[in-house]
């Protein structure tokens, strides 16, 4: 996968993750172009797009669009399922997720994404395991707020 974008129906970017090195300018141009193109598409249209030499796979969940760019030979349907699994993860973590959760806790959304996809490839597809990893890290945070001891290897 080359990158993933989350944006609202109003075209506001909520999350962006780039797995290929691009300059800031290019990133902005790409996201602007794509947001425009995708928002202009009708609901019954195909979830796939050809854009430059990339394949864009997107899906709308309520007011949020999830959009991934993959290479041409990649499997579009499985990419669609990656998006779906991510939404499931968010949903489970936040407990019926809504756009506001993602706006206000975007760093959490990034952490979940990083646990699910690494370097553009799905690393852990088990919902249980992803959430376990996140919870462990969160737990660590709670503890570190209570005390300031270094090293928590006893946790494991």
């Amino acid at each position, binding site marked *: 996968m080359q990158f993933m974008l989350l944006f609202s129906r109003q075209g506001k970017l909520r999350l962006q993750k780039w797995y290929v090195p691009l300059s800031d300018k290019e990133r902005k141009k790409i996201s602007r172009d794509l947001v425009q193109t995708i928002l202009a598409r009708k609901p019954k249209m195909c979830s796939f797009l050809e854009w430059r030499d990339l394949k864009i796979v997107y899906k709308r969940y309520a007011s949020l669009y999830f959009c991934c760019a993959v290479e041409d030979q990649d499997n579009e349907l499985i990419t669609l399922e990656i998006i779906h699994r991510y939404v499931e993860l968010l949903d489970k973590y936040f407990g019926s997720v809504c756009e506001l959760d993602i706006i206000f806790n975007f760093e959490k959304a990034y952490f979940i994404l990083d646990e699910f996809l690494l370097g553009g490839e799905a690393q852990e597809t088990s919902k249980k395991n992803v959430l376990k990893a996140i919870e462990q890290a969160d737990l*660590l945070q709670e503890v570190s707020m209570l005390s300031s001891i270094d090293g928590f290897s006893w946790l494991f």
Partner: protein
Amino acid sequence: MSDVVEKTLTALPSLLSLDPQPGSAKLSSTSKLGNLIRGITELTSKHEEEKLIQHELASIKDQVSSPNTSMRQMKELMVRAIYCESLGYEASFTYIHAIKLAQQGTALEKRVGYLAVSLFLNESHELLLLLVNTVLKDLQSTNLIEVCMALTVVSQMFPKDMIPAILPLVEEKLNHPKEIIRRKAVLALYKFYLIAPNQVQHIHNKFRKALCDKDPGVMTASLHIYLQMIQENPEGYKDLTASFVTILKQVVGGKLPMDFNYHSVPAPWLQIQLLRILALLGKNDQSASAVMYEVLDESLRRAEMNHNITYAILYECVKCIYTIHPKSDLLEKAAKCIGNFVLSPKINLKYLGLKALTYVVQQDPRLALQHQMTIIECLDHSDLIIKRETLELLFRITNAQNVVVIVEKMLEFLRVNTDDYTTIDLVGKVAELAEKYPSDTMSTVFSVGGDMMQPDIPNSFLKLLSEGFDSVEEDRKLRLFAVDSYITLLQKEPGKLPQRFLQVISWVLGEYSHLKDELEPTVVLKLLAKLLDMKHTSSETKSWILMAMTKLCEGGAEVSVVREVSETYSSSMDTVLRQRAHELQYLSQDSELRAKVLLRDNGLRPLEVDSSLSFLDGFVSEALAAGAAPYKPPHQRQEELAQAKALSLEPYGLSLPMSMSSCSITDRQSPTLLSMSSGLSGDSAEISHKGGSTSLKLDGVKRVWGREGYLPQRAAVEEAAQVEVPCTLRSPSQQGDADSSHSQTPTSTPTPTEPDPEKQQLASLFFGLSSQSSVCLMGKPEPTPHRFRRKAKGVTDPTSSSLISTPSNVEKLLCNNLLDSNIASELAVSSAKQITELPQGLKTASSDIKQNNPSLIVDNGIVAAADEDPDRPKDLCLISHLPAELSELCHSEITPLCTIQSILCAVNSCQYRGDGIFPVAWGGPSGSSVLIQTPFNHLHQVTHVSAELKKSTQCLSFAHSDVTFPCRPLTVSTEEYGTMWLSFSHDTKQNLTLIGDGQEALTATLNVLKQKLQLHVVEIIGQEGILSCRLLQDQPCLMHCRVHAGTLAVWLRSPVPDLPDCLIYHCQRALQEY
């Protein structure tokens, strides 16, 4: 599940109105970030938002630089900074603090720090270097979470040059007891493999260990690496085929833990990955494919559930089945599957169905026929993406009968399409079709495609027009037609036409308007003059127009029109335009000169070119007498430069043998361009070099004058050297084939029950697709020898082009040492074992060498598969054509591979400079024979060579043969070594595994290298050692080894670009084998 999500998300708009609803309670409404976000949602204008963010950033800036800010506050600030950046406001001042946070913060703060770094910086950002130490520290941490964070950031982004610093630590993590760490480590290595493959070459065996990991997650992660490696070299991993099949069997059989299920489908990601790998392994390999059939069948059978994820697997399965060696019952099932996709009411599946059809239709055109009505419906689909994919499909099934309809559909799409990228791609395809099946569509392509199309499209069109086809009458008609339609276009509204089209128009009118008798040159000239006056005509176009006018102006009435124009432009600021204007002025007044310079090209009498530029001899000798430096070819200059500046760190590009061949290829292509650089050489070597390189990039406009006149084709040929030449020379038998298929088509086309007349008419799209004719119609119908002949027409020296076909003339050509000739050969050299005949040919002269170096002979044998070419001369005295470098050496019998036109390719074993026996492939006319392959090239510059040769419209492929690395010891003293070391510019560094341990490890390892690769050990001092070797006389490579942290840190240097990399690879292999 998804329904729940959808429902909750639909409730959002009401939440966004900021009512204190439940659900917003859990939001951090009191935090500063919360306030900021709220503040922004309340704003109405972009301007207000900007003000607010600037204010916010100013306050963040204040706080981050204050020494009193705790790490906890810093974390909070960083989150706000990320938010501002995501809105598009720059907060670069926080970058350094993000790194600091990752370095100094505890757990969660560190996590935010790493996140901020990965969002703010990209791989090439210089600040990233500061992160290396933090990553190192965290990788060694006892805290699992910290290790995870470090591995995550490493696989997200890491500076390429710093990989060696952390590589040992990441490798170590492959043995970690926790699977999550092992998995992340594998993915980190995958990332390294992607950005710097040679850095992780030596740990391939560890990848195998990861593949066998007891945790399926780690195994899945390792498949990413394998997919990549197998893509690059499928041959190297055939032994794993059975293992991959077994894994897939287990997955499909539901043997994995439930955790891996996704919507009750077992590990779909893993399945898809495996199917892709199997497709690569089974491609063109019957035995490997046979292993897979069973599991593929099983996969097809199991995937029955009606869910996206099963379709994803099915799609991959179908692709795999059509990629590997075919098996009929599987193909049948797969075809049925594709049918389900295509007929599905779900648009996503329909799209994939079309995509799958596009993929398989070349092998089985009947499939397209089966679904023709659906395809026709898709052509009118409201979604452009579906349309686009359908066109792609049609493009693949185009043949002489349906080309008109298909091209029409494509043009229709082009007119509504707004995306530049698609336009360029599609215009290219239309142009390809138009060339293959000549018709009058090109005008539409030019006016629709506009200025966006690749520059080679108009060039190849002009070439097509000027070279003509089989019959003179056809040519005449086509040219007349072009002239007619362009005149009409110009009379209408030329202002709307794209520049490139105008250029094409002016060229055509200049060349061919005389064919139309009733057309007065004055009329054309006036039309052209009108173009000149238009405001937005670019100066490039203007010079095309002026040239056309020059050709048209034959004195008489035209002169008055022309005079005005030439006067206007002869004072133009643009030098090219001014030159053209002056040419026009003089030539229009001096009809005698004009007749000499601008011969009317009747298409039959080819232009003559003096490629040796003998007419410049007088000029050159005068210049030399006046003290000018003699001309040196570019490679010689470069060498001298390299010697002058021994310490230069910049790579000088091509080494000597390569630049020689590239140079001669250039010569062959464009004698006129060569004249430019040599003409300049009198001034200074530097300038002429520049001139030479820029002259290669000039397009047709600027350099079209040769000694004998206008040379339009040459420019076109040069640009379009790689473009497919259209099918114009059909053999009668093929024509017959096509006709018969045409007549058969109606019977084999299934008629739909209630045919809509319009749609039925569109079914003409599928003409010629019936099975009988598919073989010749689906492929590129033109026979190969014809293609060569066509290409030769543009490039080859005219004196030779008429003589080409007979062998004796070929020989003559060889002796004449013509530079201007075209290589076109197919040459295949493959693995050592298959050929034993070649070494047999070694004559007595070399038999004693054979005894001395038996291993080399056996290992270096190669197979020469000669292309059966009718032109092949049977009785050529090959020895006389040996390249000069080789002629004085002992050599075995020469095996000619193929001879096409004036070029001969041959392979023989040759003793090269007394150092050993090597297979050598060479080609070219005698005297100017180019040594295509030295042993070194053979192994490692194969791609380079074939790229080089492809340039001259030939394809030459060398299969990689598994030959022992042919280097020899180079005996030098430590002092000599020192001087050489400093003067070599190409280097590489790498860690190798040590053999044995303790004090003796270094010596033991170096001895292995000495034995296996014949390296010369110069000296060993303590924990360091230096070695040297060479390939040929002038291709040394030096090696410096140091024992460091349990590994052997190796640094290689050589003047030959790829040698260090290649040697390190062989060192690794040698040590592994040991």
